[in-house]
């Protein structure tokens, strides 16, 4: 119960600081949109665009997530708040879940803002189920946020953290990215063979492992 309350408080703090610095979130959105646009304009055949819309969405979110995660720790280190958290009677698990949930929420927000633009620019109408697309986005953003929150902590105290974070994070999230890209593409194109649920199940399994394992490791890394 105490951990749940502390997680809710941490989440509240994260969302409040994000709200106060809305320029940070909009910066992440523009970064993701620029990626989506660059891929669209560099593709020679416009007929290919609807087929790559799903993958491009996740490419944009992946690149934007490193900025978002990096900034989430920059706030903590500005005036030693990270040390303050360590010395405060708050469980590291709650700090992890609060931050990871907030990072997920930011990425989901960016993804939801990108989706209509993606549909328009890539001429990719959504033939599949919208709730399933939302579930895919939620699980996919969670798959970036959980390991990203852990690795963000590791790299945040190192010099060149913005370079180190993608180096550590990208190889780790490849399976989840392949699965969400495939699931999203199937949902965009229509899914007569009903393959999307299998890809979604794979992302859900990835999330289950990383949301539990990262929470356990977070406290040990925070102490170091």
């Amino acid at each position, binding site marked *: 119960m*105490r951990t749940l*309350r*502390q997680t809710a*408080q*941490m989440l*509240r*703090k994260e969302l*409040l*600081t994000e709200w*106060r*610095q809305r320029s940070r979130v909009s910066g992440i959105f523009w970064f993701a949109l620029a990626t989506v646009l660059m891929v669209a304009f560099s593709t020679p055949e416009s007929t290919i665009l609807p087929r790559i819309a799903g993958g491009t969405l996740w490419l944009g979110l992946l690149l934007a997530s490193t900025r978002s995660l990096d900034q989430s720790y920059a*706030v903590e280190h*500005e*005036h*030693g*708040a990270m*040390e*303050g*958290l*360590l*010395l*405060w*009677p*708050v*469980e590291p698990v*709650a700090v992890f879940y609060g931050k990871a949930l907030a990072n997920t929420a930011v990425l989901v927000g960016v993804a939801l803002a990108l989706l209509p633009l993606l549909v328009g620019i890539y001429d990719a109408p959504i033939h599949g189920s919208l709730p399933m697309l939302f579930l895919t986005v939620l699980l996919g953003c969670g798959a970036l946020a959980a390991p990203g929150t852990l690795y963000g902590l590791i790299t945040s105290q190192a010099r060149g953290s913005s370079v180190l974070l993608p180096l550590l994070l990208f190889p780790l999230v490849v399976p989840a990215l392949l699965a969400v890209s495939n699931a999203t593409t199937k949902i965009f194109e229509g899914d007569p063979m009903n393959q999307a649920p299998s890809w979604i199940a794979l992302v859900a399994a990835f999330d289950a492992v990383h949301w539990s394992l990262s929470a356990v490791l977070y406290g040990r890394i925070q102490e170091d």
Partner: protein
Amino acid sequence: MLGPVRIEDVSRRYGRRWALIHVDVEIRPGEAWMLLGHNGSGKSTLIGCLSTALRVHEGRITMGGRELWEHRQDLRGRIAVLGHKPHLYDDLSAAENLSVWAGLGGLEADIPGLLRRVGLDPERRDPVRMFSAGMRRRAALARMLLKQPELVLLDEPFTALDPAGRELLVGVVRSLRDAGATIVMATHLPQAARAVCEHALILEQGRPIYTGSVDGLPQDLAFE
């Protein structure tokens, strides 16, 4: 009550350089100690070890007979630190900061009352980034008071404070001591610390060179 703080033959190094060497002191409940010494003498390292931010490499520290590092999760709720960094979130107001930290620690606090006590206006909505260094220090002091601590660790607490701020800080620390808290204050301003502390530990290059009453110190002692 926390019981005595025993620093037993403690040494701590950074890499191969020893910052604390064989420090051995017993601090009884309710006592107020000043840590004196030149820059780099090990004062902040000792405060770090007492706060559980740093682990000792030799010897041990106990509080009320409990090994500090081993029981750090339990004891952190009873230790308050006012360090070099204010442990505040720049984008939030002072009241929001206190509300966040109180919520995280599950602490009941009269936040407007605390802010008034340190000379800040509870109605002020400006984010902490707009504060002067002295006002930030006051906000950090209010944050420290959220805990109703039994061990109070102050690292160069007079930094950035004007004479009125110093007087206020001395008053707050005195009231904590009168309420039974143990005080450890690292400073290079012994004259200011004399108003609160009756014991002194002088460190030189990590080694204790004086342990005892402040009455045994020369009046014109200075560490510039």
